Structures are given as C-alpha cells and as structure tokens.
C-alpha cells in the first residue's frame, strides 16, 4: 500500500529553501533526488570568476509522489545566485523533462529565479531554449508540466518564458512573474516609467494577485506549502495536452487581453475595467476576500 501523507507543518513558501519546499510538497518521505549534492556536479564556469559554487548548482531534481501519484520535481534555490540558470542548472531541468517524456510522468517546476546567470550567459540562454522545447515536447505527449511560483527571487527573465510554456501556473501573492525585472525596466526606460524601489508598484504590476487577475496564472494560493501542495494535486487532475488548438486559443486570448487592457496606465486601471468593486483595496485583501473579489478575473482556462 502506498503511504500518502503530507508533512503537516506550516511552512512559508516564500521563506523556505528549495529542499524544504520539496519536502513539504510531496508525500512525506517520498522524494528521491537525481544528481544529488554528493555527486558535486557543480558549475564549470563560476571558479573562473572566483565565485562560490553550490554542490547542486542551485536546483534540486528528482522524483516523488503527490497524493500517491508519481511525479517528477525540480526546485530552484532562489538564494543561490538569484536562482539563475547556468549550464549545469539548466541541463538538470532539461534532463528531467526528457525523462518525463520517456516515463510519461507529470512534472512540477518550483520556479525561483531571476533568469539567466550572467557569468554563463550563453550556456544559460541555450538552456532556456532547450527547456522550453522540452516542455512543449513533453506536453504534446499528454504529460502536464505545472509551475509553482512564490519564491524570493520571483520568476523572471528566461524563467518567466519557461513558465509561459507550462500547462498550469500556481502563484502566491509573493510570487512575481515578469520577463524584465523592475531594475531592468527602470534602467532602460527611466524612473518615470517604473520606480523599482516602489515595492507596491512592483507587486501590483508583477505580483501574484495581478497575474492571477489577468489570467497570467491559474491558481492563487496562500504563502503556505500545504496550499501549494493542494493546488498542485488539483492541477494534475486536469489533463489537456498541447496542440495547435490549444496554442491558437492562447494566442486569441492574449490578443483579446491586449485589446482590452493595452491602454491601461496602471494595474489598478485593469482591475477597475475587470469590474472589481474597490480596485485600490486589492493589494491589502487577505486570500479569501481576494478570491471573492477575483470572480471576474480574466480566465486562462480555455487556453491551457
């Protein structure tokens, strides 16, 4: 008999390490790591820059069970080099996705990344492309790839592109999803365009609530490991695959969304257009009240 039990401890997803998140996410004791730290499969590039290495290169991959069902899991460690993709880090995720295709097992990606690692940019960019291809290839076989986003580093740059290819995304309020980070926008377009130190602005533009409201994420959860676990269990029950119809539906949805909100100056304008009663109150709402207010959100369900 398969033992199904969650680790019944309250754990802030935002604060937890990659390993703590995995432990709290899967059935207790079911995780088995591939290419663990004892193998010391470290980045070949960091020593050139005299930078500290990490034995797992900032990503933990392996298999485990979720509510009894076997799944493959990857978790980025957002505190090691901002969770950024390098050569080894990327290859571990690519390999996991290819294994998923062979094994026909669903994949959970616990994003926590600023994007590509500066010190190994070419290898990192290539890895992003390989991973995106591997996600689509495995989804075409009917396997689900679910992204979980709520870490300290957010999900930026190449990480956000990969997230865009996932079957479903689960996000918490703390989670941020954006191609360009706040500092990048400010540097390139000026502080009048985006004040990266205005944290309320950052969160209402890139944060979990806004992404959920505009259909950029499918499930909104509390910053609790158990909430992410339940949402992941639910997400894996939905089987969609990925074909031209799905992609076209997604394209249409995005075009509609651009038409509807393209002129908006601020996220609050979008929330107003969505018909939310008190749009300025959205950031302060606790989860249950927010979910009630979010009934009229842009829905991504058709497309994914």
């Amino acid at each position: 008999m398969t033992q199904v039990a969650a680790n019944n401890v309250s754990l802030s997803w935002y604060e937890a390490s990659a390993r703590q998140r995995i432990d709290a996410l899967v059935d207790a004791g079911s995780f088995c790591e591939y290419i663990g730290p004892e193998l010391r499969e470290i980045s070949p590039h960091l020593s050139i820059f005299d930078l500290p290495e990490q034995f797992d290169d900032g990503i933990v991959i392996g298999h485990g069970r979720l509510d009894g069902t076997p799944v493959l899991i990857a978790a980025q460690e957002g505190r090691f080099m901002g969770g950024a993709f390098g050569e080894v880090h990327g290859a571990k995720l690519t390999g996991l996705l290819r294994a998923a295709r062979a094994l026909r097992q669903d994949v959970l990606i616990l994003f926590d990344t600023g994007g590509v690692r500066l010190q190994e940019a070419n290898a990192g960019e290539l890895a992003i492309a390989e991973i995106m291809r591997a996600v689509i290839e495995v989804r075409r076989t009917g396997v689900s790839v679910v992204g979980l986003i709520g870490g300290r580093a957010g999900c930026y740059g190449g990480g956000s592109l990969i997230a865009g290819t996932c079957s479903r995304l689960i996000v918490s309020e703390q989670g941020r999803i954006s191609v360009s980070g706040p500092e990048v926008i400010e540097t390139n377009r000026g502080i009048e365009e985006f004040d990266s130190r205005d944290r309320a602005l950052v969160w209402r533009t890139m944060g979990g609530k806004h992404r959920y409201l505009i259909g950029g994420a499918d499930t909104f959860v509390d910053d609790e490991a158990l909430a992410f676990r339940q949402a992941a269990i639910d997400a894996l029950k939905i089987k969609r695959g990925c074909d031209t119809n799905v992609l076209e539906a997604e394209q249409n949805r995005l075009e509609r969304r651009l038409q509807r909100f393209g002129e908006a100056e601020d996220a609050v304008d979008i929330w107003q257009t969505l018909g939310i009663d008190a749009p300025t109150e959205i950031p302060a709402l606790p989860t249950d009240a927010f979910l009630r207010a979010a009934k009229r959100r842009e829905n991504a369900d058709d497309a994914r």
Partner: protein
Amino acid sequence: MEKLSFRLTAARSAGGSRAQAIVGVVASGNLEVLLERASPTDTCTIDIATAAHGFGAVWDAVVRDFVARRPAGGLRISINDGGARPDTVALRLAQGVRKIEEPER
C-alpha cells in the same frame, strides 16, 4: 576562493544511519554544509571553500569547538561558504549533525 582543510579527532561519533545530509545555501552571509559518512569513526574531516579570505584562525576555532561539542566522528564535511559569520557557521554545522542523525523515513 580560499580553501581550508581540517582533520580532527572526535571523541563522539555521529549517530543515525543516513548516508548524507545537506543544510544551508550558498548566499551572501550564508553557507552550505554537506555531511557524508566516512571512516574512521573517531575522525572528522572538514573541507572549506570560502569567499572571505584571511579568516583561517576563526575557522580553526569554530571547527574545533564544533568537533568538541557535537558528535562529529565518522563525518566528512564539505562547506561552500558565501562569507557567513562564525555564529552562522556554528549553527549550520550543528543543524547538519542533527539532520544526519534524524531517523530515516
């Protein structure tokens, strides 16, 4: 990066049956500690790669205290350090021993 190595005699050997344990992450002011079983059981080896240069004497004091206070015999400990303070290092080492001694599930 500065590399330091210690080979110390330990009065007590680590309990439990886990083959390895890892705690912490490599970040500014933080470190990762990888603990693996090795023989002999009255010896603890500690290999450190640290971003902060010139703190050999402090490391020496920290690891000696650790081996004196905690059951560290039979452990091969590898550390990647992002410039952690000595109190953080001592805490991670203690957490590592606790983790490798935890019962397996």
